[in-house]
């Protein structure tokens, strides 16, 4: 998992995407009761996209966790 003792970049990507996933998913859920003035708000893309980021992020964190 390490390159010359370095934490791989994929781990950092995982951490950031996980944080973004939580934020965007949270904002998407909040939007269920407080709709944003955007086109196709009824699709609730924030929930889907936030969940996607969370899954990708957690996947990368798990796969490239430094202690593993």
């Amino acid at each position, binding site marked *: 998992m390490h*390159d*010359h*003792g*370095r*934490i791989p*970049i994929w781990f*950092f*990507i995982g*951490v*950031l*995407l996980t*944080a*973004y996933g939580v*934020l*965007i998913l*949270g*904002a*998407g859920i*909040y*939007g269920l009761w407080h709709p*944003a003035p*955007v*086109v*196709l*708000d009824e*699709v609730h*893309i*924030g929930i889907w*996209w*936030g969940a996607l*980021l969370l899954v990708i992020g957690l996947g990368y964190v798990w796969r490239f966790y430094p202690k593993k």
Partner: protein
Amino acid sequence: MFDSGSTMHPFFALFFQAPKQLVSLGAVDIVVVALYFLMVLGIGYYLKNFTKTGEDFFMAGRDMTSWIAGLSFVAANLGALELMGWAGSAYQYGILAAHWYWIGAIPAMLFLAIVMMPFYYISRTHSVPGYLKLRFGEPARLLSAVSFGFMTVLMSGINMFSMAKVMQIVLGWDLNFSIWVSSLTVAGYVFFGGLLSAIFNEVLQFFLIWLGALVVTILGLYETGGWSGVVHRIHERFPGQDYTHMWKGLGSFSDNPMGIHWTGIVMGLGFVISFGYWTTDFLVVQRVLAAKDLRSAKMAPIIGAAFKMAVPLIVILPGLLGLAVLPDKLVAESAQALNPGAHTYNDVLPLMLARYCGPGLLGLGITALIAGFMSGMAGNVSAFATVWTYDIYRAVIKKDADDHHYVNVGKLCTVLGVLVSIGTAYFVMQFSSIMDYVQQLFSFFIAPLFGTVILGMLWKRATPAGGFWGLLAGTLSSIGMWAWVNQVPSALKYIAVSAQAKPMAENMYRALWSWIICVVVTVAVSMMTEPKPEEDLVGLVYGATAIPSEGDLLWFQKPIFWAALVAIGLVIVNIIFR
């Protein structure tokens, strides 16, 4: 969401200063943007412990995998201006803009991988000017290094100003705030970790650019009912205009909105400009030189090419979707004065972000734009530091210092490069018209450079004098042609073959002529001068070099297999959208 007039801390007020802006960020969006800044700086700081030697700082230790080098290779080119500018071009010219991503990039990237990379890699050069030194001697290296260094810093400043301008228009951010915060962040992480940090952050930025911009494409296609829906809506809204065919209108200069002929696209863009940029611009080539072995170095541009071919999904398609769904028609920058309040073509991507993206997603989209800017700028800065340190400072000023000294010079160059770029940004602010000139000229330094490098790699008879004089003649002729048309507009019919040619077409043909002049002069001078002995060409020239084996690979592990797949993909997309 916050409003522009909210009472807040003066620092945060910088985000909301301009009275007129396309979108405003909410609290979640600001957290998303702030996390990004923290992460890139954190990565740079973390990597400082891994960049002790010159090889670490300037070449990222030459241990990058093909995926990291490949994604970084394509991300360094995916600047924010590239994203917004080409989305705007797609709105203006239609799908013709995709030529810059397909025929204008993919063949050159594959050529770099399969034909040129072995010579760059085997020669163990630190830079493209460094290769010219080995092949043609010191004068060719210095000419190339000085023009590259000068233009890189200038371009970096111009991009910085353009980005700050975009942030002012889109978000209402203060120009000074955008310039200083973004550029000092880049300076910080490149200073700490050199090319290693730039490459790592470019991979991160690559993910953010895609994940931030892809939302627009997905929702746009959902709204229109897919590609056929996009085409139908565009035809309905712009009857009689062809925005959805790539080759159909290229038989004549007057049959397409770009005013270009297919020969200009194929020879000027597809051959000279594209090959010049992707195979000799050190900004992108440096990423591949950092690969850990020859196979990785060959695979990196192929991986980059596969993703480059997909970039129209997040750049060209949003522009076309803008044509299909935006209620108001956008106008050219030059026409904005006549249409006060109208948005310009370049606003199409932010407008589409604002159309679909609620809290959080908007922050991600803006982060994508900022990430694009930073990846481009870090590319400029790290390439500049390497060329300055190895090809100018070590070659001319101090030849025998130790490795530690050169690392410190590289770090100093990083900071100075950013400060000069900032100075350029403020200079451009006063004289904004020079921006267009410099951007045009930059690409034409590249066209003759491609002539010199390709002859050097493929023709043993090319001599040091031929290489130098060819490069000089090509560069001067490109500046001369530009100045000629600038002073005498009627000269356009000679340079661009047609008086109807638009600036885009003129650029294509000028690049082609300057390349031809470079090649003709190089060949002529070489035939009149003494060639280098063949033993001096080992590792530098085709025919004098035994290309090392890529190892015992299965057929599907070989770079040529993947290059062929990408090439087939290129043919298919061109047939589909012909």
